[in-house]
């Protein structure tokens, strides 16, 4: 790897009560690239994703051990403010979950709570910028006051992306962002992801190997709580080192 990684995980263990969900995950994630996490259901890829912005804190029985550093800072250190962490590590969820508010308010919420916009004009600019980046501006510019839940599924997901990038995070985590969408909406989002990586670092969990191959530069394959293999997407798909990876990408397991 030519550069120091933006995110580096070292020996990450995750337990749900007594059950171990992740075992000694060590993975580096480079900046301005799309890294996809693949693997069969229950392999721990979403768990790992949620460790990166500490969403697992919300689960009472969840315990994380090991070390995850983002730009050199250990995000599980006691002096870390998880609110500040999440402002820098945004997240897009599996099911589009816009707030039941207007389109404008959905995007403006992040900048508002983080105090990013000084004036009303700033805010409008910021909302427009985010919606443009998310490729939604042209479709919604005339109805910003309408409620976000009234959009189509694909539009809702792009609204969620706009909402996430409005606070200008370093990293965007995407948890199967296209699994609830039709192929056309999926194609639009995939294009968008490619566009967004110029500005952000993206980690995407996906069930679709084709999607991983299409959008990501790097891929990590998880299986039963362990990281089996990671590397450049092309080499992982064409010349997997591990037999389990081979089986998975050819469809024999999973």
């Amino acid at each position, binding site marked *: 790897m030519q550069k120091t990684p933006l995110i580096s995980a070292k020996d990450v263990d995750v337990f749900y009560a007594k059950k171990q969900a992740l075992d000694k995950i060590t993975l580096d994630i480079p900046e301005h690239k799309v890294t996809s996490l693949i693997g069969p259901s229950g392999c721990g890829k979403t768990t790992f994703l949620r460790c990166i*912005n500490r*969403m697992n804190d*919300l689960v*009472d029985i969840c315990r994380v051990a090991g070390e995850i550093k983002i730009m050199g800072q250990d995000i599980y250190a006691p002096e870390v403010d998880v*609110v*500040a*962490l*999440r*402002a*820098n590590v*945004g*997240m897009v*969820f599996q*099911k589009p*979950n*816009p*707030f*039941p508010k207007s389109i404008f308010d959905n995007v403006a*919420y*992040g900048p508002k*709570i*983080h105090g990013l916009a000084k004036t009303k004009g700033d805010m409008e600019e910021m909302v427009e910028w985010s919606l443009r980046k998310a490729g939604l501006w042209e479709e919604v510019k005339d109805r910003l006051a309408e409620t976000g*839940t009234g959009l189509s599924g694909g539009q809702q997901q792009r609204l*969620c992306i706009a*909402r*996430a990038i409005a*606070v200008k995070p370093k990293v965007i985590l995407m948890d199967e962002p296209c699994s609830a969408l039709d192929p056309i909406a999926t194609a639009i989002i995939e294009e968008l992801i490619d566009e967004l990586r110029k500005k952000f670092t993206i980690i995407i969990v996906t069930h679709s190997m084709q999607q991983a191959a299409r959008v990501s530069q790097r891929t990590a394959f998880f299986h039963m709580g362990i990281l089996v293999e990671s590397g450049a997407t092309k080499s992982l798909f064409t010349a997997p080192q591990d037999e389990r990876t081979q089986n998975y990408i050819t469809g024999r397991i999973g």
Partner: protein
Amino acid sequence: MTNPTTSFLKGQKHLNRRHNAEQRFQWMGRIAIALSLIFLAFMITSIIWQGKGAVSTTKVMLAFDLSAQMVDPENIKGASYEKIVKSALRSQFPNAKKRKQKKALYALVSSDAGFQLRDQILANPALLGAEQTLWVSASDDVDMLMKGHISRAGAQSDRRVNDDQIGWIDTLSDEDAIKRVFNIGFFTSGDSREPELAGILSALVGSALSLLVCFALSFPIGILAAIYLEEFAKKNRWSDLIEININNLAAVPSIVFGLLGLSIFLNVFGLPRSSPLVGGMVLALMTLPTIIIAARASLRAVPPSIREAALGMGASPVQTTFHHVAPLALPGFLTGTIVGMAQALGETAPLLMIGMVAFIVDIPSSILEPATALPVQIFLWADSPERAFLEKTSAAIIVLLIFLVLMNIIAITLRKKYETRF
């Protein structure tokens, strides 16, 4: 291979059995709804039927001697109006000679007639100096007779109104000196020992003040408790214990809360007895579990994806709760509150324990003054022997129901306003 059961036709035996079962179930449902509607209609018509009389009251017109000899214009309040009323009755019906007859004659008008006369003179002193014909309230027995609740038939000794009195009333009636008017007093005065004077206002105000106190305490406390338990508290043995206790509290008989109020609020804190403040506090104790349980259920119904969305944006837990979760749960909060408040409005037992069962004539003007409440007033009137209190009781129930309906309308309007689809 032909399977004998492969047929799409109607009328097969096992299909008929299933259709019949479905029909039976639907009919049972319809009958249940019809029965409950019949009971409801029965209850409402009987209450209205019995209570409708209370909106009118009977007045009689008499000629009062208001010469300076009887009322000193310099000292209007000092005159003996009872004497004037009695002499007016005597001069109207000189045939009442015996002591017993006179007593019966005086019983035609309300014991309040003298005061009513005085008030009319105070309002219009120009009446003084001559004989004036003025209207005063009839007694409750006359009122009942006029409304047909006391029968004219039967032995005199079995009746509240004797033959002499019926004769006098008929005379007044022939002279158009007796009439039924709208009973303003029922809505503007407090309780009274005399049914014709008893009004609902003091109980209504008492109930309104108690509910205000109850709402001011139980809404914020209940909602905050629910939000804390649901959104912030760690789930462990303690939270389980608290949850069990809250659920149990909701099932505690209300009189127990009254006893608690008596021993803590009155005896330990020394708060004023019979006051809407203490009444409201006791009702709040009773309402709290209802509100907490309903509010928690409505918080639980907010999709977790909303919380994740907000937290994922870097909103703090408090921001997440108050910007996103609580607004979505608000309609549920309101539903729980209205159920609790409606319960509190109809509650009698705990109020008995803290002295709100007292006989209250004055309209309470603050939450610290003695007051009674609508259900207690209904209980008191239902307990009174006079026939005239029967219609007061029903009328008070109607007032209580209207109060309840108004409360519900407000809550439903608010809920509609804040309802968001997601």
